[in-house]
């Protein structure tokens, strides 16, 4: 059974208006458990939109998104949020950290919704920081971090709940070469942990990586496979 | 939670002071004194010392 199954997925923006357009058109895609999949395409091809829909950040206009055989496209807000909280780790292009808080406090955010005790939460945050190699900056305010450090903080936050699926939207867009390679090392750790990872990118750095299982091309909201 | 606990404690202490003051205020003695005077003078008026009536009308109904 596939981890993620997308069937006849469409996303129409501004419906019933003169500037209505299809960001996604009739997408059909299956992703197996533990696979690392790259969504390739230029800006505006629909990669980020597809990630948003898989992550439950928005709802499709039509079609189904089955994760572990559950259609997440039709879930009410409480269940969709719970799904996002427990199953998805999102790494955004602009990192989306909570400014004014420290690295530790940012990583703690998803744990605020749990009933874990203080020690258990501390353990989870430490593990996430170790994986992302950011523990040496744990008490530093995220505003004073470099681009690469901010991304590693975002990665730690994305994995602290030990999600099954990690979605990364243009993870290396704001990084230099050195930090991009650091990201790839972390990607290899995800592989070892058997996480299902979907990366939306147009960075050629991912082209010939051994850890990548599949590359899916997108253009104008459609899959080219 | 520590912050909320500290806040609750601080306000509890503040209101304890307020309640203790309110309970210890001897209003009976004051009422007795006013009663004693009012019995002699009957039609009492509030003792105001405004420079003009206009000032007085600023607070009190004419």
């Amino acid at each position, binding site marked *: 059974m596939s981890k993620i199954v997308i069937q006849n997925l469409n996303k129409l923006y501004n419906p019933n208006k003169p500037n209505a357009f299809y960001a996604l058109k009739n997408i059909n895609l299956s992703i197996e458990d533990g696979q690392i999949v790259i969504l390739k395409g230029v800006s505006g091809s629909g990669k980020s939109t597809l990630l948003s829909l898989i992550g439950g950040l928005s709802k499709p206009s039509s079609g189904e998104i089955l994760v572990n055989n559950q259609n997440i496209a039709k879930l009410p807000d409480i269940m969709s949020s719970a799904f996002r909280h427990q199953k998805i780790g999102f790494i*955004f292009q602009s990192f989306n950290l909570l400014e004014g808080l420290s690295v530790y406090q940012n990583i703690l955010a998803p744990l605020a919704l749990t009933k874990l005790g203080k020690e258990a939460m501390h353990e989870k945050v430490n593990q996430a920081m170790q994986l992302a190699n950011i523990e040496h900056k744990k008490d530093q305010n995220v505003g004073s971090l470099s681009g690469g450090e901010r991304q590693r903080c975002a990665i730690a936050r994305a994995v602290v709940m030990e999600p099954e699926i990690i979605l990364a939207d243009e993870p290396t867009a704001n990084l230099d070469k050195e930090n991009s390679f650091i990201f790839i090392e972390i990607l290899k750790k995800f592989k070892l942990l058997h996480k299902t990872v979907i990366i939306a990118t147009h960075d050629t750095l991912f082209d010939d990586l051994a850890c990548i299982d599949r590359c899916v091309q997108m253009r104008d909201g459609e899959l080219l496979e | 939670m520590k912050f909320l606990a500290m806040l609750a404690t601080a306000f509890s202490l503040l209101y304890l002071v307020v309640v203790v003051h309110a309970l210890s205020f001897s209003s009976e003695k004051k009422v007795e004194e006013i009663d004693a005077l009012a019995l002699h*003078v009957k039609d009492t008026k509030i003792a105001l010392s405004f420079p003009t009536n206009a000032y007085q009308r600023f607070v*009190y109904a004419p």
Partner: protein
Amino acid sequence: MLRKNFVEYAILLLFKDRNDHLFSFLIFSFIVFILSSVLFISDSLQYDLIQSIKAQPSIVVENTRAGRAYPMHEGYVYDIAQMAGVSSVEGVVDGYHYFAQKRLWFHVIGDAHLAKDEMLIGQGVQKAMAELYYEDEFHFLTEERLINVKIDKIAPKGTNIISNDAIYLNPNTARAVLGMEMDEYAKLYVTVPNPNEVGQVALKIVEIYPSAKATTQADAIGAVRHVYYYKGGIFMILYVIALVSFFILLKNQVGLVYGEKKKEIAILRSLGFCIKDIIALKLIQNSVVSVSAYLLGVALAYVYVFVFNAPYLRNIFLGSELENSISLTSVVDFNLLFLIFLFGVIPFLAFVILPAWKIAISDMSEAVKS
């Protein structure tokens, strides 16, 4: 939803934006402090005044001529005493003496219980006299002569609300000071045993003496219950200050949700916070701020009014020409305090939670990309 971890994280985020929340906290405390202080002092003064009108006569008659107070002679007493329903009429000497050296008016009241050379003065009068070294006796300077009276007794501090500017003298001495004749009275106290007849008697008095004013006991009690000029004056200024401050506060509150904060909501949503969680978060944060501000405002108002006896504000209510060291009775109207809470805290919360809800229900995918 109200799990310990969640509440702690809500407080963490509150501290992250502490400057904004501190501003809201201070403004709201100020508004509550102002409203509560005025409420406390006005209620306290009114409470004491209500105590003082327990022996209010059935009818008080005062005469006027050309719009000014004018004395009444024995004929008035006789005519009114003849009316059906009237059991007794008592004439009273009452007036104001101008203390030129300090440019103050003293309220001179005739008290038949005092002997010819006895004088009881209020504490404000005593302080004013003492400043000019009138400590044992006082000289009343009238048109005709100088009247020396010994200062016997000082009215107790508890009666300052009615006695502060008063000088109580034997009625004949009072007449001499006020330049009234022996058979003249400033007021008449009319006793009508049957309360149902009071209104009729008052009408009859005014029929006979059209220039006289007949104030019934009910009118006098009503005047004390509605003693404040709520439609204007200090209360109007107070409403305006509170309203303007409140609008500044509400603007700040709305600002807590837009701009950067909009993205914060989107980030939290993307991490798994549902709409209810966002509302709960904002509710927790703003409840902490608003309830603490309210409690602080009320407590500070209590301390200001009842512990320190409301310096400056007291002068607005009592005048500052004569120093009044009144001790305000601790009177707390819980109904009005609850109303202040209701009309303060609810809009305070609503102006954050409603925009937060609106943002939380919107499509977060665009917000997280910006």
